[in-house]
């Protein structure tokens, strides 16, 4: 399988989830489109690419189960799509924008930015702490939205109008790499009169049998250049017709923008057809990627393999490290093609970013292998992506490499017990000082 990809032969790619990988056959398949773009730039950019992308859009809309092709447009990446949605809401005082502690960092900062500027909607955060379970998350989500509704009712009384609540839900969290019960969470949003904006960055090509018409989120975004093998950068923005009036403008604003009060017909698709000159071939590549995946055996075959390797590999890794998989207590209900295994550090280990930097030096550079590392709920974890080129042996090699790296890191940075002791002494002193 590695023949189909253009990795450095010494590099074991265990982090497909972050940036995706372009298969060589897809790179070849899109060369004719690049040739067309240069053969006659005007013909390509005024006509050919527009029609090609229209066709690809229709194909992608079918693939994700949208009711209409006009509900799906291309955007450069998930962050761009999510920013388009969040910025197009008209924010008012009292509104609540709700993300999670596990939201992708740039989405948290987007929510932060929106609340930083007038009229300063409230920035709320739902908490998910692993280990946990789908049942617990669903329970907690309902309770959380109900509490937000109480806050909203209070604001409504004070303001004389009913504010809105917009919730950003990951379909699959990035770190840890974990499938959430997002469809149930979307249902609860509807029951609680909360807008559901789904960050599905990792979904397409990893979560089989997507059916957005059925799941019916208010908005949904996914990256085709992650698990679907499209060329960077290529993502989909899904907005069901009932919500297209919320999307006043694309970013950048298109020449096809019409002032809302003059808009007598939905022009959602038109607004996203041209937003300045870019390389349009990545959008076209999504179709070539689907062809390649069909050749590999199709979505179910690909994901069955990746899922199996993720579990087997994760178990083997946990064995070697002497630790655990994050959801082994929940029958791996959070695990699709990414598996999260605890790193064997002492419990007092620092959560500092420099630990991740140390792993980069020791693994990415020295050993040419690198899964993502992250600190969550008091522990360091590693997130491994299983792909069609992955084998359980990769996890074994990784396990040995991590063991060695951990020993070195504890030697270099200490195990944090000293710092912890100092912090506790500091707290005691503070308490004593207050008493005086």
């Amino acid at each position: 399988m590695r023949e189909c990809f253009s990795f450095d032969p010494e590099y074991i790619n265990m982090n497909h989830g972050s940036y995706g990988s372009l298969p060589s056959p897809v790179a070849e398949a899109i060369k004719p489109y690049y040739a067309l773009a240069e053969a006659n730039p005007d013909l390509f950019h005024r006509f050919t690419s527009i029609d090609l992308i229209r066709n690809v859009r229709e194909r992608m809309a079918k693939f994700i189960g949208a009711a209409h092709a006009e509900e799906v447009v291309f955007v450069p990446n998930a962050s761009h799509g999510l920013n388009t949605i969040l910025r197009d809401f008209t924010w008012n005082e009292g509104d609540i924008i709700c993300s999670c502690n596990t939201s992708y960092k740039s989405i948290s900062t987007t929510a932060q930015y929106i609340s930083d500027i007038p009229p300063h909607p409230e920035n709320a955060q739902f908490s998910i702490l692993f280990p946990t379970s789908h049942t617990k998350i669903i329970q907690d989500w309902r309770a959380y939205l109900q509490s937000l509704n109480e806050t909203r009712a209070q604001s409504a009384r004070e303001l004389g109008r009913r504010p809105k609540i917009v919730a950003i839900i990951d379909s699959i969290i990035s770190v840890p790499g974990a499938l959430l019960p997002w469809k149930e969470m979307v249902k609860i949003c509807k029951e609680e009169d909360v807008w559901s904006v789904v960050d599905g960055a990792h979904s397409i090509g990893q979560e089989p049998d997507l059916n957005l018409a059925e799941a019916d989120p208010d908005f949904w975004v996914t990256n085709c250049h992650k698990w679907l093998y499209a060329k960077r950068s290529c993502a989909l923005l899904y907005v069901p017709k009932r919500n297209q009036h919320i999307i006043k403008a694309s970013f950048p604003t298109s020449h096809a923008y019409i002032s809302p009060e003059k808009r007598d017909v939905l022009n959602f698709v038109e607004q996203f057809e041209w937003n300045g000159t870019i390389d349009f071939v990545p959008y076209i590549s999504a179709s070539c990627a689907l062809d390649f995946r069909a050749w590999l055996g199709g979505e179910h075959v690909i994901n069955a393999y990746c899922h199996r390797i993720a579990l087997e590999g994760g178990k083997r890794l946990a064995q070697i490290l002497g630790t655990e998989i994050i959801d082994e207590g929940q029958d791996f209900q959070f695990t699709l093609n990414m598996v999260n295994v605890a790193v064997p550090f002492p419990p007092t280990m620092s959560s500092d970013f420099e630990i991740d930097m140390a792993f980069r030096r020791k693994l990415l550079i020295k050993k040419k292998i690198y899964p993502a590392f992250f600190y969550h709920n008091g522990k360091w974890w590693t997130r491994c992506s299983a792909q069609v080129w992955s084998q359980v042996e990769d996890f074994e090699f990784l396990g040995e490499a991590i063991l060695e790296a951990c020993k070195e890191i504890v030697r270099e940075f200490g195990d944090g017990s000293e710092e912890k002791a100092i912090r506790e002494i500091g707290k005691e002193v503070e308490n004593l000082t207050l008493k005086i």
Partner: protein
Amino acid sequence: MTSPNSLETLTLDQVLKPNSLFQQSAPKFGHDFLKYYSFKAGFLNLNNGSFGALPKVVTEACTELTAWQEENTDYFFRIGFIPPLIGVREQLAKFVGASDVDEIVMVANTSTGMGVVLRNFLWKSGDIIIRCNTTYATVYKTIQYIHDTTPGVQISEFQLLFPTTRKAVLKGWQKHIDNVKLNAPKGSKIVAIVDSIVANPGASMPWKEMVKICKDAGIWAIVDGAHSVGQEPLDLKTSGADFFVSSAHKWLNAKRGCAFLWIPKKSRDIMLTTIPTSASYVSPGPDRPETNIVSQFQYNGTIDYTPYLSVDYAFKWREWVGGEAAIHKYCNGLAREGGKVLARVMDTNVMDPDGEFTLAMVNVVLPIAKDLSAVYDASIATALTNKLLAQNLFAVTFYHRELWWTRVSAQIWNDLSDFEILGNALVSICSEIVAEHKNANIPQNSKAQSFNSYLERPFKGAVAHDYNKGLGYPQPVTATTVVPVGYHTHLASIRP
């Protein structure tokens, strides 16, 4: 190339070998250069201005860059891309006369750069945005969008009507600015968009003087310099502008999807966030580092960095072909001479005979009867575009002041005979259009008083019925065919 063995990062000179072509001496400007570009055989490209053209050597360098990216994506996206990107920003900073590398950030295109600046201002009721009738459509509409979504924000539109003189433009601009200032509510901010080179018509403006008029009046000046870099020398630190955006994939030979935004230190406070917001965004306040916006622009969502990094090789290409001065001399001279040839062949006139507004683009009136030009007709716009492409050549056509025009780009692969060919093609195309329109059933909503009033409410699907062919619905366009008059897409008629 294999992944590195140390944290030592690579510069682009280490990643990209010098092309063997650079050992040879470059040919003279003109058709001898066509073999270094990838145009389809026989395609006459007189429209570098819209989408640029990627020289073959830069295409090859881009292939190398993509291979480097795919070899070890974690290395590339966490470590590898950063020094080369800073290197490109340093090169651009020097090239455009910025004071510091941190004044230059990369964006996908000028529409994005202008959009991110305009949307970062915290607009309040009473604020005024000054645009022109000639402001580029995406910027024009961004301003519309801001007006529509922020109650009380006003738009003040300056009418820029060609033909004119630089003196008249400056006089009119001064008057307009004075008027706006006089009537502006107290405490409001006023932001003006100044095009360094207008798109339609293709006209080099006295933009530094226009910026000075703004600054003297205490008005923000955002310069849309989309066409500037590589077409005119720039010294931004002395320009006085508050922001400047330019597309490197137009006249600087970079890969499409590459532009830069100049944010002088004085303007940094306006720029709170990139769009999309970056993971490195820090809320305004004492904890926010001064260069946070620069960090934000370094990474704000996964993209293909190849277009940005291609600037390095584009500079090498331009040096090899003869350097900036030689390129400008040839293109500007050809634009002027070519315009005269076109006017002679079509028996019309050049918009700017004194050449005050002419760099590498020239505008000439099209031979379309006055009665047909009285109102803007989208089906004529489409017909012109389609018929030119059907003849395997292209120059932009546009409507301005009740006349149809062509805007022609002069590039180092063009020579004077190209203008002769274009002229003859346009003569036959225009007479075809006049004849077809005499009896065609043009839908009423394909016409508007002016292009701008059409722009307010663009629509798709207008069809000019060719009574000879009896065309009904628009036919889809494939890669190898162009549908002759009868197929309308608003895109064809609006983009420059």
